[in-house]
């Protein structure tokens, strides 16, 4: 277990270094180019052109003001065009680079503006071409500030790379979120954070040294080493490429990974099938990735959620088998039964539409409220037609509800977060029964519906080993096999 963890850590460290290195390399080179153009087209400069200057300035400002996570999701088509997939470590590099280019461009422009205009005049008097002025005067004279700016950019990229988990990019930040935040594993969180701090410190020290001595040697050596590392890594992955058939399966990060690692072993040993796990942190991207072909299947959602997503976004995907039902439960730290809930009690419910509707339906089954039957599975507090106890609903992020439990009177906690937060379904004041429409399903693209490869996947998921692993992670009836019922 410890060695597994260390392996995860090494892999995450390399993923972070790889993402940050390639993104830094590209964004510093392209950003410098853009910064130079912004500088020389300024009014009064060598190639003054206010149209180009204003247009580029506007693009830079717009790109810089888009929140990173939104930029990352909105450029998915471009990412797919450039690296062939919208998920994975390579896919994470595209938005990182795109976010850092305008940032470094402004840093470079500011650095160039600090160069004494007299030097440019002197170079012009010598008969220097604009390119010679840029390469022999501007950039060498601004080198110290440019190196400081590049250091700043690299460090920003290290912190941005933590969000790469959202597109299955991995990395240290993703590891910290997955183990530390979602699985409450403080040690892993600490370890990754310490490694990140050390990484940032080292970059800063190298940057300060290089800036002081106007020397690019340190960075040149480092990038040489890292290029070598990238080449070795690619070589290993090419040489060690499995001859087995491979399926990329999208799952939620967190405890699901533990179960799916068992499924991986079963698939490899018994079915000669290589399951590649792609982890996600949100509920939208796994379907987008499946629909676009970046992954081959996903196992994370329920039928109502799938139907809602298909209706909303027109995906061409469908479900082929059920896996487990993970009952949602109603928990309280303050009261021991639903009957003792006071008038006006505060009830925490998940804030994503599917889980929100699910929580309201559960409260209805428990006899606390009535929901307008017309809204089906996706009700909101607005659709509550009868609320005799005048319950106050607080919609929270699914991961934070269990943390907020001491502060509310009642909380609807999704199964994923019950065990990690030290709870057990046996403690629930009320929970879903086996008849709830919320069994997890295996979803594939419609054209793959009858592909025998996916029949193998179903057999893997229904194997005794996976069942055993699931029951180990979800003890006390927290997971019920759903396939026998269907």
């Amino acid at each position, binding site marked *: 277990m410890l060695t597994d963890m260390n392996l995860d850590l090494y892999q995450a460290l390399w993923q972070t270094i790889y993402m940050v290195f390639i993104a830094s390399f590209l964004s510093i080179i392209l950003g410098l180019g853009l910064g130079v153009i912004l500088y020389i087209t300024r009014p009064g400069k060598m190639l003054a052109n206010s149209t180009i200057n204003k247009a580029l300035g506007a693009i830079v400002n717009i790109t810089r003001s888009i929140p990173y996570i939104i930029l990352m999701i909105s450029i998915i088509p471009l990412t797919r065009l450039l690296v062939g997939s919208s998920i994975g470590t390579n896919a994470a590099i595209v938005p990182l680079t795109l976010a850092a280019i305008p940032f470094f461009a402004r840093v470079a422009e500011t650095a160039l503006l600090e160069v*004494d205009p*007299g*030097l440019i*005049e*002197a*170079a*012009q*008097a*010598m*008969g*220097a*071409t604009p390119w*010679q002025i840029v390469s*022999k*005067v501007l950039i*060498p*004279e601004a*080198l110290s500030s440019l190196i400081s700016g590049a250091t700043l950019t690299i460090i920003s990229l290290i912190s941005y790379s933590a969000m790469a988990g959202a597109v299955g990019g991995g990395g240290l930040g993703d590891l910290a979120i997955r183990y530390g935040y979602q699985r409450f594993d403080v040690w892993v969180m600490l370890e990754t954070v310490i490694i990140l701090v050390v990484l940032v410190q080292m970059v800063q020290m190298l940057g300060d040294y290089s800036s002081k001595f*106007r020397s690019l040697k340190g960075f040149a050596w480092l990038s040489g080493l890292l290029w070598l590392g990238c080449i070795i890594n690619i070589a290993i992955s090419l040489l060690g490429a499995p001859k087995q058939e491979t399926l990329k399966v999208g799952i939620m990060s967190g405890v699901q990974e533990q179960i799916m690692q068992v499924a991986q072993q079963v698939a490899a040993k018994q079915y000669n099938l290589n399951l590649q796990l792609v982890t996600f942190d949100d509920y939208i991207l796994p379907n987008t990735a499946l629909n676009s072909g970046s992954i081959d299947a996903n196992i994370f959602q329920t039928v109502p959620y799938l139907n809602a997503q298909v209706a909303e976004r027109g995906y061409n995907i469908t479900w082929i088998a059920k896996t487990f039902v993970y009952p949602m439960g109603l928990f309280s730290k303050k009261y021991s039964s639903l009957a003792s809930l006071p008038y006006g009690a505060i009830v925490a419910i998940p804030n994503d539409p599917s889980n929100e509707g699910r929580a309201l339906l559960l409260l209805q089954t428990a006899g606390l409220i009535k929901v307008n039957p017309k809204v089906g599975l996706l009700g909101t507090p607005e659709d509550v037609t009868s609320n005799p106890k005048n319950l106050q609903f607080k919609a929270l992020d699914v991961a934070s509800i269990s943390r907020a439990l001491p502060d509310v009177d009642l909380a609807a906690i999704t199964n994923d977060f019950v065990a990690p937060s030290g709870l057990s379904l046996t403690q629930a004041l009320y929970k879903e029964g086996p008849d709830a429409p919320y069994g997890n399903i295996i979803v594939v693209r419609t054209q793959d519906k009858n592909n025998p490869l996916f029949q193998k996947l179903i057999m893997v998921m229904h194997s005794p080993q996976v069942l055993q692993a699931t029951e180990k992670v979800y003890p006390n009836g927290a997971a019920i096999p759903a396939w026998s019922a269907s």
Partner: protein
Amino acid sequence: MIELQGINKSYHTKQGAFDALKNINLNVAKAEIYGIIGRSGAGKSTLIRCVNLLERPNSGKVIVDGVDLLELNSEALREQRHAIGMIFQHFNLLQSRNVYHNIALPLELIGIGKTYIAKRVDALLDLTGLSAHRNHYPNQLSGGQKQRVAIARALATSPKVLLCDEATSALDPETTQSILDLLKQINRELNLTILLITHEMDVIKRICDRAGILNQGELIEEAPVLELFARPKSKVAKNFTQSALHIRLPDSLEQRLQSEPAEGLHPIVKLTFLGAAAEEPIVGSLYTRFNVSTNILQANLEMIHNSTIGMTICELQGKPGAIEHSIEYIRAQNVEVEVLGYVD
């Protein structure tokens, strides 16, 4: 070598158009050192920048070594600029390069091989006395050393013309002298034509052959330097030459000075001696010839271009007729006489 014809340059400011240069005509001969003097804001910087087109005049012709620069496309202009060196008040050396590489820069720009660059730079280091500072960076040098580097850099491409933009204004007097000596030396040894601008008449006095006075964008007076000192015409020229010769009436006397002659008043005259006349005892002989006594208030003797120029301010006392005669006599000895006023 440098010919400016009818140069006009105006800027658009928020207050409207501002004429920086008005119909400038200027001719600098080969191997001549020509100085342009003017107060700050007179248009000197704009004028010298028009010569290598760092500023483009609105109209006129800029002819350097027979080529009208305004007719050239940008590539041909860059070519011509290799033959026009320039140095600046604040030196404008690259902080990222040491002395050697600063001097090598113009040679790098025209794509010359490293071995030739090494030879050429070593020769220039020798010429400017910088050999010991070859590997130093600009921030390790004094102002005078920096300007020497700038001169060496400007000479690297063997230009025919050197433009000096207030080249000594940021230097102390002693360093100024050594830089001026260096400019004079390269002018003689390399037959280099030098056009300089300055606000210090001292600079004009020390190294220029000819000088022009720029006032509010106009070239109001132009003459060989000796002539300019001996017979300045404009008020601006007089102010500049007097300050350079350190000759000025004492304040107490200036206040008592009256512009018209009257009973009981004595004239105060300024005598300017040139060349041989300066060495004759003219003032002393006035008493024996005309019984006019001279009371010398101020006197100064300067060497300009191996000629002596002397100036004396004195009060003449004697009978009215005798004073007129003595002034005529002095003029006859080829000495400039200017009556500044009368005192009692």
